[in-house]
């Protein structure tokens, strides 16, 4: 499905991971993240094992390491907070390289960093093996509130349309000699944003008209029925199950 509907995050391929039904993958990633988050932070080796599990999945999905690592950079702004924790947290302190760091802060930072990175890595893997469209079908299948799925689907459809409208407005501004330089011009930009909002809102009304003209009564009709066999479910859940074993070991050891 969706030739040419390439999104930046998606990596086209025909691996067994690509072929799994989207809702099984979504559920598996969710379960994996829950398991990772509930692992005690002191069991450092467990997080190493999780990373190994994810590497295995990436290998099966034929997603190259470079591709994955580059997309992990999205995590950086969130991690910045974790880096601060050892400096600001209270309690017992240790000397590291001449700096006085808080022990509980270090553990907290490690906790955020390890669990965050694993969660992001799992999500990046999901996104690079599942098309956006399929993800939506998966969410729908998992009985997410239909309104949320519809909003997400419209975001995908109209993101480009609105970006294009924004670009045309910018060109129109610049054609009339406007260049945003400093605070004095923010007023103009704010008015443009307002105009864009009104335009998008009116488009929303027109789209709604077109939808009810074609028989929309409040819920999206089911066009693609995604189904998964028991084998596919167990295949997808190999990851969270393996993680669960690691997690249980982490609690008992």
């Amino acid at each position: 499905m969706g030739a040419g509907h390439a999104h930046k995050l998606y990596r086209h391929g025909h691996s067994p991971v690509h072929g799994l039904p989207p809702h099984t993958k979504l559920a598996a990633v969710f379960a994996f993240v829950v398991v990772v988050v509930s692992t005690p932070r002191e069991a450092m080796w467990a997080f190493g094992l999780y990373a190994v599990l994810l590497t295995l999945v990436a290998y099966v999905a034929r997603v190259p390491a470079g591709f994955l690592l580059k997309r992990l950079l999205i995590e950086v702004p969130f991690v910045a907070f974790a880096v601060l924790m050892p400096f600001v947290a209270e309690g017992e302190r240790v000397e590291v390289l001449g700096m006085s760091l808080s022990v509980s802060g270090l553990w907290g930072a490690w906790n955020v960093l390890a669990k965050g990175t694993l969660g992001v890595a799992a999500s990046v893997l999901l996104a690079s093996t599942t098309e956006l469209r399929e993800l939506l079908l998966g969410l729908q299948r998992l009985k997410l509130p239909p309104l949320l799925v519809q909003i997400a689907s419209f975001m995908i459809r109209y993101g480009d349309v609105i970006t294009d409208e924004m670009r045309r407005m910018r060109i129109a501004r610049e054609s009339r000699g406007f260049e945003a330089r400093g605070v004095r011009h923010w007023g103009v930009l704010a008015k443009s944003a307002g105009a864009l909002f009104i335009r998008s809102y009116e488009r929303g009304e027109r789209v709604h008209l077109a939808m009810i003209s074609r028989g929309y009564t409040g819920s999206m009709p089911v066009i693609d029925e995604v189904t998964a066999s028991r084998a596919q479910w167990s295949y997808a859940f190999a990851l969270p199950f393996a993680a669960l074993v690691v997690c249980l070991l982490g609690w008992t050891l």
Partner: protein
Amino acid sequence: MDPVTAVTASLEVSGLAFAYPDGHQALFGVDFTIARGERVALLGPNGAGKTTLVLHLNGILTGGTGTVRVAGLPVGREHMAQIRRRVGIVFQDPDDQLFMPTVREDVAFGPAAAGLRGPELEARVDHALALVGMAAFKDRPPHHLSFGQRRRVAVATVLAMEPEILVLDEPSSNLDPASRRELADILRSLDVTVLMVTHDLPYALELCPRSLVLSDGVIAADGKTADLLADDELMRAHRLELPYGFDPRSVPAAPGRP
């Protein structure tokens, strides 16, 4: 009205009047009938009430006086789902009409909303896309298509519902001459009643043997397109203008149905 036309007419509008909630009256008693298989152009200056009229045809606007019947079925709350299946409106901006992530899903939307599933739905989609020559673009997202292609897919989304009457709002707007001609070929090849709202008078002449002129909320003229366009006085009275150098007397009129 004799019973014969009452059965065969695709669309009957009688005594339709409508005022918007802000008090602006857009329609003052509109009457016309379109027989099954006819292609009719609805002409009129901006603000004549054309869009208001179109939105009455499938019951999006109601609450005025008068009646609209589609293939004998009155437009009203009780048959709304069926009316919307029978009246296919193609809106002016295809980006408004195509709201699903892929062409295929968009074309499937109408029939799926009507309860069609599985291979039947797939066949309906394929057929509608084949009619507009867009079968090869089935899995593409609409925003990756050219404007002309999007307009054709918009027509397909409506054809997939197998409507009694196809209503097109400014079908030739923003199309380059080649896309405009391709769309004309497609519209001519369809075996469906067509009501075409347009400012493009040569296009109306090319496609529609009959025209209605809507002006100030009433039908000011109803007749052969070639005759109406050649009537200078009528044209001037209703702010209708032909493009420079275009003489409706010099071109062959639209052929009727074979």
